[in-house]
């Protein structure tokens, strides 16, 4: 067996040289001081491969045009098994890559690994940092939700203000008039076609340079015998890669990446924010006004890149032990504090995400329910029916699983049962439900429609919408208005009201309908602020 394998290996090696090349790569000599502090480059390369892998998988089910992009991503997230995990890997992988690249650079900086003859290795590394950021910038648009759209509007406007090159840059980005199909195609082309092979080539060149000059030694290494790269250092790299992978995987499984509403250029209430690693640039723009604006948008970023590129030519001293590089450590500390402060300030001035935002990466079947059914979900939750009547609940098996089997009783039977459970089913341990007759009707109406397929709405319907529907139902709005095809047409149907009115208008209209719509026969409703807020949010969430 081994003999046969060796013969095949040596046949292949004779003709391709693969084995020799791999051996040469693995048994490279590295300085005695090499160790755990040098694992970050390998981790970054690994994360790049994970991005390529997850990106290709996403592309298999993704349509790169504005309208379809959103729908196909939603399809990946809500209908394909594993789709959410793969998008999670790609999303969090991007953030981790930025972190690891930064740590890798800080390590190289503190150890003075850029010193002669390794200046070009450092410069190519700065190029890789910029490529990583370009990936983040272009990928941000591709979900084509509100976040993506508005973030890119700001980016393209900034680049349009660059002196001399601005108009050409914005033309290159297809954003001369507005962010639209052309910009989208350019960003997709960059993100999926140009940047990946380019980055792979630059990584190859970077690794080639590392190999050409050897891993940077520490002072005192000359006297020590050299080590082999394999397996000692490969083991350390592997452990670090595995640790990074576990963190990434846990993030992808646990931390939901939301999908917002589809890009809406007419939305005036949206508060755009860039991805966290660009927040410091975003914050900096607030400090520069008028003609000084260019300082924040172009001059300082360009200066920062120039400083990074010039480091090896400014610091040309001998290698120094890391612990003695007090100046270098100080520079890193100041940079981190500056970056962290700006980022923290940006986060502090960002309003908390609204509780009424809908996560479109989750099923949104509840949007199709009638107000009565949605209010029924509210009573189902409020009376805590969930704890005995759904599979997977904490007291599973105590009551029948209403979602799994469906309800086969009449509404009248259910209502009697709600009021006096044991009278209808002798020995029932269910406590009586203390709701008004109207509310019991609502609950029964919902249960009649409940089945295994729509049961997810029980969990996914957001609290604000359920509250809004309960207010809608208890005030009998359906006697005049129609929602999702249910109700009367005496007043206007309420689907699509978000396009016709502002939130403020609707809120004031409740208080004094005739003040805003002379001749309206709608009575005034004096809701509590909380009720009004949730009702308006619910109505504005309705689909057209």
């Amino acid at each position, binding site marked *: 067996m081994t003999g046969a394998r060796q013969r095949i290996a040596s046949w292949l090696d004779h003709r391709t040289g693969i084995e020799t090349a791999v051996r040469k790569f693995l048994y490279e000599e590295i300085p005695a001081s090499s160790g755990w502090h040098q694992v970050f480059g390998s981790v970054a390369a690994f994360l790049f491969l994970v991005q390529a892998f997850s990106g290709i998988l996403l592309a298999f089910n993704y349509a790169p045009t504005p309208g379809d992009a959103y729908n196909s991503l*939603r399809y990946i997230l809500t209908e394909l098994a594993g789709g959410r995990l793969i998008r999670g890997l790609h999303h969090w992988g991007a953030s981790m890559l930025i972190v690891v690249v930064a740590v890798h650079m800080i390590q190289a900086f503190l150890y003075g690994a850029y010193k002669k003859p390794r200046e070009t290795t450092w410069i190519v590394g700065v190029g890789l940092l910029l490529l990583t950021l370009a990936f983040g910038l272009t990928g941000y648009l591709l979900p084509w939700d509100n976040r993506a759209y508005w973030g890119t509007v700001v980016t393209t406007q900034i680049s349009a203000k660059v002196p001399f090159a601005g108009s050409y840059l914005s033309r290159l980005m297809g954003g001369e008039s507005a962010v639209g199909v052309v910009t989208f195609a350019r960003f997709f082309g960059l993100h999926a076609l140009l940047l990946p092979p380019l980055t792979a080539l630059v990584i190859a060149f970077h690794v080639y340079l590392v190999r050409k000059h050897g891993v940077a030694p520490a002072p005192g290494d000359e006297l020590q015998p050299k080590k082999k790269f394999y397996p000692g250092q490969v083991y350390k790299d*592997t452990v670090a890669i*595995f640790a990074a992978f576990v963190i990434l995987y846990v993030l992808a499984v646990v931390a939901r990446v939301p999908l917002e509403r589809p890009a809406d250029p007419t939305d005036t209430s949206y508060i755009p924010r860039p991805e966290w690693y660009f927040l410091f640039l975003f914050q900096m723009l607030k400090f520069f006004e008028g003609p000084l604006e260019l300082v924040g948008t172009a001059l300082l970023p360009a200066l920062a890149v120039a400083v990074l590129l010039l480091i090896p030519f400014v610091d040309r001293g001998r290698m120094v032990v890391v612990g003695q590089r007090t100046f270098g450590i100080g520079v890193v500390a100041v940079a981190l504090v500056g970056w962290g402060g700006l980022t923290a300030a940006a986060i502090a001035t960002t309003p908390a995400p609204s509780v009424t935002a809908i996560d479109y990466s989750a099923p949104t079947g509840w949007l199709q329910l009638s107000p009565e059914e949605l209010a029924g979900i509210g009573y189902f939750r409020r009376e805590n029916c969930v704890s005995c009547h759904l599979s997977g609940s904490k007291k599973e098996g105590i009551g029948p699983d209403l979602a799994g089997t469906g309800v086969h009783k009449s509404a009248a039977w259910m209502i009697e049962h709600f009021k006096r459970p044991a009278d209808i089913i002798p020995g029932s341990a269910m406590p009586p439900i203390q709701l008004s007759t109207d509310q019991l009707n609502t609950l029964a109406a919902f249960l009649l429609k409940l089945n295994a397929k729509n049961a997810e709405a029980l969990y996914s319907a957001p609290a604000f919408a359920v509250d809004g529907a309960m207010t809608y139902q208890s005030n009998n709005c359906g006697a005049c208005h129609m929602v999702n095809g249910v109700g009367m047409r005496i007043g206007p149907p309420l689907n699509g009201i978000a396009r016709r009115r502002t939130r403020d208008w609707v809120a004031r209209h409740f208080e004094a309908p005739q003040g805003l719509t002379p001749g309206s026969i709608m009575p005034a409703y004096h809701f509590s602020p909380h009720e009004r807020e949730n009702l308006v949010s619910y109505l504005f969430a309705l689909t057209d």
Partner: protein
Amino acid sequence: MEAAAEKRAKSSRRTFHLSAIYGLWGLIGAALAAPALVYLLFPPKARKEPEWVEAGDAGSLEPNIPVEMVFRKNRVDGWKVISEKTTAWVVKLPGNEVVAFGPQCTHLGCAYHWDGSRNQFVCPCHSSAFSVDGSVVSGPAPRPLDRYQARVENSKLLLGPLQPNTGTRS
């Protein structure tokens, strides 16, 4: 003595390193490959109940004479629902059973047609022929014609999803 002990320690460390390298990379590979396969191979969740559409008038059918009916049908295509023109070959069999055949030959999916002179459905690609009840008469077709779920209400023909025919040739 000491040199030998050190050599043994070195070799066992090497074995540990190697097994860690192979083990951890194996875990990473499996953790990436498994969801990728699930993602690519599992069918998407069904978004819509199969719908029944009206294909045409069943009252005018003559026994044993197939008619081509063209109707519009919604089909879920990935992330889209498209409305498309669809064809069925509809025939009233003896016993008044109305049957609607899917428009594709069961061999390789070409569109076949009814040849009145031969009293057979004939496929233009590889000369498969089917009798009026859909069974294979000759040619390479592996199984009888596929049928839509069908029912007649007030002499309107309603068609449901196309059921792949799992029968054998005859």
